[in-house]
């Protein structure tokens, strides 16, 4: 028994080397290493930094919760974080509500061979330069912009509207436009998966079209709706460009705050604490929605 141990180990190693698992690790090794070194390690670093103390030109290795206390109790930081959450929620609601009928139309009312053309049409604006699109919204909503000059030219208003640029409204409009295609695709995919005979069965059993939609289509489309909520919510809450360019001082969001702490004030520990807080908020919201999704998949009881 004991004398064969070494041999056995060798064959075990040999077997492992030829096994599926080893080949899989060999394949995934390089991208995994890249992600560990350039994503895993940096994320661990800012989590560590968020518990250290900021000294003059250096970081003091004193473990503390003071950064988090500052990030969560300081009136300024707290109001910016709450605003980010609120703006992201508003953008998500608007985007998903507007997107659902479009996804439904493409899935149910467009001939199958023309669906991918429709999806292509919907995605094109998303792939054009994001900064240019933000720039365009600034131009459209500005004091002398397209909306104001157009409305004044038509004689509808006498003075330029000022509530549409450099505030939260402008941020919501711009972001809702930017993420529209992102919301349509997951809903479309979920609607495509629905077995059409279920809908016929619903109507054969005497349900109206509206009730069939409410009781069959909508619950089955819910995983897609939740996916699009997450796909819109996560990047919007951390968006930097739009609040910086069309938000004005009233529209600043958490990414602007993080940038300020890191690049202008050089306070890495506080910047890290705000970044980690933002990341936690995103994670908590995502988990809530994933939990809701699981409830939906299990079906109503």
């Amino acid at each position: 028994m004991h004398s064969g141990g070494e041999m056995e180990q060798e064959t075990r190693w040999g077997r492992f080397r030829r096994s599926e698992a080893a080949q899989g690790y060999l394949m995934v090794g390089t991208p995994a290493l890249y992600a560990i070194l350039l994503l895993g390690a940096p994320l661990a670093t800012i989590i560590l930094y968020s518990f250290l103390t900021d000294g003059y030109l250096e970081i003091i290795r004193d473990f503390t919760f003071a950064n988090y206390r500052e990030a969560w109790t300081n009136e300024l930081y707290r109001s910016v974080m709450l605003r980010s959450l609120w703006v992201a929620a508003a953008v998500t609601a608007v985007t998903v509500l507007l997107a659902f009928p479009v996804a439904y139309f493409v899935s149910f009312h467009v001939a199958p061979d023309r669906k991918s053309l429709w999806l292509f049409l919907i995605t094109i604006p998303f792939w054009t330069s994001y900064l240019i699109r933000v720039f365009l919204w600034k131009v459209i909503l500005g004091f002398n912009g397209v909306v104001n000059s157009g409305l004044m030219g038509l004689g509808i208003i006498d003075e330029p509207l000022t509530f549409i640029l450099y505030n939260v409204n402008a941020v919501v409009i711009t972001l809702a436009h930017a993420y529209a295609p992102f919301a349509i695709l997951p809903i479309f995919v979920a609607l495509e998966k629905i077995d059409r005979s279920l809908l016929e069965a619903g109507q054969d059993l005497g349900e109206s079209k509206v009730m069939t939609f409410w009781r069959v289509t909508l619950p089955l489309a819910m995983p897609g709706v939740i996916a699009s909520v997450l796909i819109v919510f996560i990047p919007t809450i951390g968006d930097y460009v739009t609040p910086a360019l069309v938000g004005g001082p009233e529209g600043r969001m958490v990414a602007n705050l993080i940038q300020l702490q890191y690049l202008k004030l050089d306070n890495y520990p506080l910047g890290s604490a705000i970044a980690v807080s933002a990341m936690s908020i995103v994670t908590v919201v995502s988990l809530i929605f994933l939990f809701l999704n699981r409830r939906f998949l299990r079906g109503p009881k």
Partner: protein
Amino acid sequence: MKGGGFRIYVLAYLVFLYAPILLLPLFAFNDGTVIAFPLSGFTTKWFAAAAEQPSLWLAVKNSLIIAAASAAISTALGIFAARASTRYEFPLKGGVMGLIMLPLVLPEIIVAVSLLVVLLGLGVNLSILTVILGHVLICTPFAIAILTSAFQSLDRSLEEAAYDLGETGLSTFRLIILPLVMPGIISSLLISFTISLDEFIIAFFLAGTQTTLPIYIFSQFRFPQSVPIIMALGTVLVACSIVLLTIAEYLRRRGLARSGAKDTGGFL
């Protein structure tokens, strides 16, 4: 026609999606410095003015280098990861793939600051190279998503037939698998290239004193007189990205047709 009211809503929605982009060429060719109606005449001077800016050309050159390198590296990494996740089972697969795909669900500013802190801590000089490092990180998940669907539509019996006929693992990959997933590889290259070209916040944090095209555009927001030039630049960019996307979509469909799969829609 079915769904009349629907059709009107969807058309209105498409107008909302396209309106800003349709305004671009309108004002790029408009002979006036203020972006407002009514239009005041046709001109191509803004295109000429854009072409005369040396800082713009430098930014374009940097952006092209970064985008080409990021596309090549992230597609190469994506091929390995997609092949691993579609063909092999191994312990911790979910965790490993989850970490690689994490940038998809992480706000970009967090990727940017965490990389910045580590790179500065290691004493690395910020340059185009550090921007490439960051862009590969965010492009790889998209490359994997595209390549996974390419690898999934492969018929495994083709691969086994090649082994039976005496090919090695490597030659099977080169002769059988690679040609079949080639359309996926090309569309992954194009998508990664487009994402990198358009990415602002990571470049803003990691470029140091270098500029990229989005950084250049961002810096021009402060100058009202350069708005028409940005409009001209935007028109050129939109035209380029529509051409690139049309090529990518064409290749994706041809790839699906070749492997006999059903068309299930867009890139994502």
